[in-house]
């Protein structure tokens, strides 16, 4: 790859209206220890290219894991073949003059590289965390793991762009279950949301061993707790549940390709339409949401998207008013709207589509104590374990691992099987208080699915805890 690759590939670029070649090299290493046994360690090395051709009213791509000169030539031929076939058959042919030449780079800051710590040391560490998780006799299942991914991309095109980006992320995971009277309750480390762009040093900052002990205590108490009662009540949602709420009922409905109908056969469309931007009251005045690729260590931080568009921070919702969709340069042309750099592909073998990057809910002014103190009766919910929402992203239902009841401004007992449901359009207008920086966490999810052909991608969400009124909360059987 790198400059050698560029020098080999550039002369192969065909004489067409526009062509780009995106080379992707991915490395992943997953180490898990489950029930105090190190599972088979997996290492994955993956590389390939995608050639994209726009020509004479047609569009096509060719993708191959054969990155030799002959392989790249074959991929170009496939892209040319499909662009020829699709001439005048396309949903939309973009104005190619709007594509800007870009030259730049982005690299994740890694203080300690993954490879500098031996596999044995990582395995030993996870076995130690396992011992902490299995610290109570009623623990029926436990496990810990660390996933490391590196995604290196080189993008060149026929207008002399040359972009190199290398993103590395770490995903630490823990799970622990306890059984009581044939009922099992489970706690995880933030619902597997503590993923960051970082080096191995991130592991040192999160104190997994101490967290393991806390989770273990928690799950035993939870297994003996009462079911959550059915109630319409105040709810404070912790960041490790808020991220799912943001993801499903703000992120997805604002994706422009959904609004334009591309996803109607699979991931769905949206209750949002183009006329709503600039005027629709999405939420209460304290709702401020950004597309922010600049947050240090957040999962989808970068300088460019996979179509070579420069990435910048933009407000999607400000003071509750819907401003801008999550649409890349090409989608924005179709819709005649503003764009953000969100055209992303999960790998070299899938074409870029509109995707969330980092979608963040900006912090407010209340501490958690202040929010709890303001509630006479309510519940504090933590850690997502179930999510479901309709194809227009309106009727949702979420489940959480743990609930803590609030009575007269104070936390009381914990409850199990916490669920809540609502309708997006009403829910965000019931947001009455947004937590301050002390409640704010940078989190993310590594498995957002969408697209045909299907793609799973990592997205970032940073959010404080938030307080909502009149929420329909209910428990298990």
């Amino acid at each position: 790859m790198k400059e050698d690759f560029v020098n080999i590939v550039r002369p192969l670029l065909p004489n067409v209206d526009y062509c780009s070649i995106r080379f992707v090299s991915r490395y992943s290493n997953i180490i898990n220890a489950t029930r105090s046994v190190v599972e088979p360690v997996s290492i994955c090395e993956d590389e390939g290219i995608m050639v994209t051709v726009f020509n004479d009213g047609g569009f096509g791509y060719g993708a191959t894991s054969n990155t030799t000169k002959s392989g790249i030539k074959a991929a170009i031929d496939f892209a040319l073949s499909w662009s020829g076939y699709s001439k005048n058959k396309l949903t939309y042919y973009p104005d190619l003059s709007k594509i800007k030449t870009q030259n730049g780079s982005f690299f994740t800051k890694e203080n300690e590289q993954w490879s500098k710590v031996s596999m044995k040391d990582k395995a030993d560490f996870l076995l130690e965390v396992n011992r902490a998780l299995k610290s109570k006799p009623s623990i029926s299942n436990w496990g810990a793991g660390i996933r490391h991914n590196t995604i290196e991309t080189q993008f060149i095109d026929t207008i002399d762009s040359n972009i190199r980006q290398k993103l590395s992320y770490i995903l630490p995971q823990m799970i622990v279950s306890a059984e009581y009277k044939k009922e099992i309750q489970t706690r995880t480390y933030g619902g597997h949301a503590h993923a960051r762009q970082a080096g191995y040093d991130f592991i040192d900052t999160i104190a997994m061993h101490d967290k393991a002990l806390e989770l273990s205590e928690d799950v035993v108490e939870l297994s003996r707790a009462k079911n959550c009662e059915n109630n319409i009540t105040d709810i404070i949602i912790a960041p490790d549940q808020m991220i799912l709420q943001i993801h499903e009922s703000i992120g997805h409905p604002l994706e422009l390709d959904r609004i334009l109908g591309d996803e109607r056969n699979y991931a769905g469309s949206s209750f949002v339409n183009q006329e709503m931007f600039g005027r629709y009251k999405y939420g209460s005045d304290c709702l401020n949401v950004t597309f922010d690729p600049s947050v240090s260590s957040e999962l989808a931080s970068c300088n460019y998207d996979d179509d070579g568009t420069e990435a910048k921070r933009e407000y999607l919702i400000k003071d509750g008013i819907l401003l801008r969709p999550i649409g890349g340069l090409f989608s924005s042309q179709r819709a005649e709207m503003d764009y953000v750099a969100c055209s992303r592909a999960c790998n070299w073998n899938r074409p870029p589509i509109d995707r969330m990057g980092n979608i963040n809910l900006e912090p407010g002014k209340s501490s958690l104590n202040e929010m709890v103190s303001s509630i006479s009766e309510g519940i504090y919910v933590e850690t997502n374990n179930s999510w479901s929402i309709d194809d227009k992203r309106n009727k949702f239902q979420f489940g959480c691992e743990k609930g803590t009841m609030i009575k007269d401004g104070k936390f009381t007992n914990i409850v199990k099987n916490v669920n809540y449901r609502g309708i997006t359009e009403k829910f965000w207008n019931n947001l009455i208080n947004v937590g301050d920086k002390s409640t704010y966490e940078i989190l993310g999810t590594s498995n957002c699915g969408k697209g045909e052909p299907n793609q799973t991608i990592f997205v970032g969400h940073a959010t404080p805890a938030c307080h909502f009124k009149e929420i329909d909360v209910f428990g298990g059987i």
Partner: protein
Amino acid sequence: MQNYFKKISDLLFNALESSEILILNFDAEETDFVRYNKSKIRQAGRVHQVSLDINLIKKGKTLRSSLRLSTEYKKDKTLLVRTLFFLRREVNELPKDPYLIYEKNINSSNLIDDQGLNAQDMSSRILDISSSHDMVGILSSGKIVKGFANSLGQFNWHESDSFNFDWSLYDDNGKAVKQNYADRKWNQDTFTRLYAESAQQLSVISNDEQKVEPGSYRVYLSPSALNEIIDMMSWGGFSYKANKIGSSPLHLMAKGDREFDKSVSFSEDLSNGISPKFHSDGFIKPNNTELITEGKYQKSLISPRSALEYSVKHNAAEDYESPVSIKLETGKINSKKILETLGTGIYLNNLWYLNFSDRNNARVTGLTRFGCFYVKDGELIGPINTMRFDETMYNIFGTKLAGLTNEQQLLMDTSTYEQRSVHSSTIPGAVVEDFRLTL
């Protein structure tokens, strides 16, 4: 492709030391993807991908690496030799694997089904027939290859051409119907018939919307809708390990505390040949494994690793222990008289975005989506508004089950995450009483 796999296998096997065993899994795909929106092409292209999983076993230890290959020998040779040396060095660092197991008997097989599919020709037929509709969907077409080899001498090969066209038709009010055509060889008459069926349903869905309120309803779950619930059941429900650690939604059933109706029998049935029968560690899977028989939990899917961990006999399930080709036996309701049997209620063609609302008690939630109608006195009246359901599997397949239909449908998995799926299911429809809609 098969010769290439043999060539690189030989390269690696010849480089082994006497104390080493090597297991190789080969995956390749040559797929044309055509994505449609508004009966036009949104994105189209070809993906060629080849990968090899290498599992080195040495002195009771194991380490795996997955590599993308170029299929140009000179380039791949360097990568493969480097990887083998890396695995050999690193495997020593790891503790012994107490659940290490691989097939030591030799069971080779070879299946090649070459149909020579032409995606651009299929696409033209799709565009021709859909030009007067608002069609959105995806055509995936081409070759899928799975191969296995180990240094003990076993070699397995499963290569087949197939296509899967999955589409929806929308009316002006945003209501839609969904259909799918998947096979090994394109048949224009079959496609025309299936497309006409979806166009016919579209005319009914354009009737006035029937507003449904939360409550309990008699419903018909089409094979596709029922399959969504069975998919949720497969999130650990048939896994031996998940039942042991309690993450299975059916763990109470596996313990003998709960049952389904006597008319319900599930099995893992690989006889349709869609999924390869060889396991990634070389074991050969049985043609049929009875999972639930006449409402009683019969057997789980047990991977060789779980078998060692829990000292039981395995049935060659992969480590994830969920079905790849599940079959639900038929019942007695005449499929051709389903509206008459339903009488007054809701006809659910498709469910969407299911998840658990109480996993311990097998309770699931989800939403209605494509082609869901209100039915009165055996007649389709019109489409319903999107509704959320929340119901337990024990109700759906047990106390509230009125019956299963006498015909099944083969449903090919449309999933294309990382690679095209070779999973399928064979499912009848079901009539269920008092099905709970909550929002």
